[in-house]
């Protein structure tokens, strides 16, 4: 009977506290003809996260470039209109300035602004003391919104609270809009204004598979597979560090390119490469059914003090690995994911300010001209004092 169940419980540790299916009874039973079990991978492939929000690197770039291009066209058209309607008033110098300064954001600049504000979403959500999953979902919603929309269409600062508020509701962590507004020092109207737009841009896909659950699962499984060969206290420490790294990973593109378990393994790899290698090696048969001595010789690193018995090891290590998982392939995927994580850099406040100002002025050329005019007048008065020093471009 319970072959199907024990498989599930070993992959879903959260449930094991509640129902422990009788593992011992596992026996080959005659399956009906056409018996096919939907695997957990099948389930993931059916999730909206996979169907709607997973991309290849090329596809992702294409998607961003489309969004950016659409926005660029609008901005340029409006600039042109502005020039046309103000033809008589615009001096040659004005035109020069417009050409130079009032240009739509590039795809790269857009991304910088999105990344900067994603981090802001995280900081604010954490500041509001929201549970990890809510913080994670806030970040995810925000970034997905800006895959569909450009920062020139919706100013990111107007969506920060909206995404956090919707994430709270979606993760079943309800706060009334009034008390949320109070805590976040925002207003009810500002928070709700784009809620519909947000839901629509999210393509009504609200359920996220964050890597925290796989992390929990891998930790339980590592402790089983490498039973007695890992120090529990050490494991506890890297667990906490990994959890933090996961939240950071949500601020990057890896969420679109890899599955949650892949991301988790990549993060584990950053923490302790040896551990991951040993674990995956035993799990997916890099070395065919490792012998006792084999393993012993490998646990030189500090992470694996020799503790307790090893009797349960045999049972675990001879467990059949899923046929379609190949160690080398898996390892190269997570290595690649790790590199992507490593190469993701954060955006400085200065840079973000610069881009935000550019985003603002390209949409408000009149304000740009006025501002420069005023500045020029000021410098004329001060008789040629250098101005560039305190050039401040906030809105």
């Amino acid at each position, binding site marked *: *009977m*319970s072959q*199907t*169940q024990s498989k*599930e419980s070993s992959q*879903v540790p*959260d*449930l094991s*506290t*509640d*129902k422990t*299916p009788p593992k011992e009874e596992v026996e080959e039973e005659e399956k009906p003809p056409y018996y096919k079990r*939907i695997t957990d991978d099948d*389930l993931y492939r*059916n*999730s*909206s996260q996979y169907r709607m929000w997973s991309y290849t690197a090329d596809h992702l770039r294409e998607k961003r470039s489309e969004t950016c291009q659409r926005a660029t066209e609008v901005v340029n058209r409006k600039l042109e209109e502005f020039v046309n309607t103000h033809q008589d008033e615009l001096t040659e110098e004005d035109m020069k300035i417009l050409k130079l300064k009032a240009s739509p954001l590039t795809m790269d600049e857009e991304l910088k602004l999105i990344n900067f504000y994603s981090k802001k979403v995280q900081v604010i959500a954490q500041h509001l003391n929201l549970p990890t999953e809510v913080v994670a979902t806030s970040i995810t919603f925000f970034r997905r919104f800006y895959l569909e929309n450009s920062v020139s269409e919706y100013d990111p600062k107007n969506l920060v609270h909206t995404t956090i*508020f*919707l994430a709270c*509701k*979606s993760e*079943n962590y*309800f706060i*009334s*809009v009034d008390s949320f507004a109070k805590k976040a020092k925002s207003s009810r109207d500002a*928070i*709700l204004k784009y*809620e*519909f737009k947000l*839901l*629509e841009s999210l393509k*009504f*896909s*609200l*359920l996220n598979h964050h890597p925290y659950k796989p992390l929990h699962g891998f930790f339980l499984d590592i402790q089983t597979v490498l039973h007695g060969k890992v120090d529990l206290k050490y494991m506890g420490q890297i667990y906490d560090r990994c959890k933090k790294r996961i939240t950071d990973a949500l601020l990057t593109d890896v969420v679109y390119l890899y599955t949650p378990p892949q991301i988790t393994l990549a993060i584990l790899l950053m923490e302790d490469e040896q551990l991951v290698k040993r674990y995956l090696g035993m799990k997916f048969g890099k070395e065919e059914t490792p012998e006792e001595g084999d393993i012993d010789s490998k646990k030189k690193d500090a992470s694996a003090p020799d503790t307790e018995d090893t009797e349960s090891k045999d049972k675990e290590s001879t467990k059949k690995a899923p046929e379609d998982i190949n160690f080398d392939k898996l390892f190269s995927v997570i290595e690649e994911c790790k590199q992507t994580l490593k190469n993701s850099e954060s955006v400085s406040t200065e840079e973000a300010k610069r881009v935000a100002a550019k985003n603002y002025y390209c949409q408000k050329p009149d304000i740009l001209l006025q501002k420069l005019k005023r500045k020029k007048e000021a410098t004329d008065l001060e008789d040629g004092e250098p101005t560039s020093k305190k050039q401040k471009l906030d809105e």
Partner: protein
Amino acid sequence: MSNPNYSKEKKVGEGTYAVVYLGKQLASGKSIAIKEIKTSEFKDGLDMSAIREVKYLQELDHPNVINMIDIFMAYDNLNLVLEFLPTDLEVVIKDQNVLFTPADIKAWMLMTLRGVYHVHRNFILHRDLKPNNLLISPDGIIKVADFGLARAVPGPREILTSNVVTRWYRAPELLFGAKHYTYAVDVWSIGVIFAELMLRIPYLPGQDDVNQMEVTFRALGTPTDKVWPEVSTFPGYNKLQIYPPPSRDELRKRFIAATENALTLMENMLMMNPHTRWTTAQCLECDYFRELPEPSNPADIKLSK
């Protein structure tokens, strides 16, 4: 209201947060239902029930779970386009003109359990299973519907509200006000539905929350620490009247048409201790589904004269 792809023809129902219309998918001519969510009335923006419904229906794809065909916004209202499901199990149970057989019951149980099994496998608790939420398609297929109270399976330390599930179908751990529970609450509900299908009347019709405990424990026995360790530590336990669990013979007398395997299934779904209550997988693999009669072909079940 208007969406070029669908027509709304007739209002068929109105709930607290939604109006349901019948309509057509214009391209295919297929009948559909549109659940229009009254968003403007909620002061906290999008309503939680609507969010839950959208969230979970978006993920679930199974023959025994209602299919969300599409979803769109119009005039600030959220519209869920659902497959057309003309009736539900509550209507069928109440309809004195419909006769159904043990094989029909078995077919309904099988379909319900399959649907809920899929929901559970996706780490979702339904939390409002009752005959009224088991809709029936024109070809007799049961579809689990209404995910307005659903939630993700909680982590080990998460605190939940026990104020879920319509009273008559509420598991004992919920009646006790447990702050943590899992899949087992849904299995209990299906167990009560199973009993109701056999009796053709509600099995545990409590009049209020206190009375629900009384009714439940009178029928199935008051749980003790022996069958459910530490159950006596729930607040209010001491005030309970202690009833003995029913003997097999008493159950046989109450459920005259039930086979031994049917009673075994029911007993295990209505196990007081949520930890020993069967999972949907255990239910699906039980002997009741392996013995005769074979479950009816859903399309052959006559739901009206």
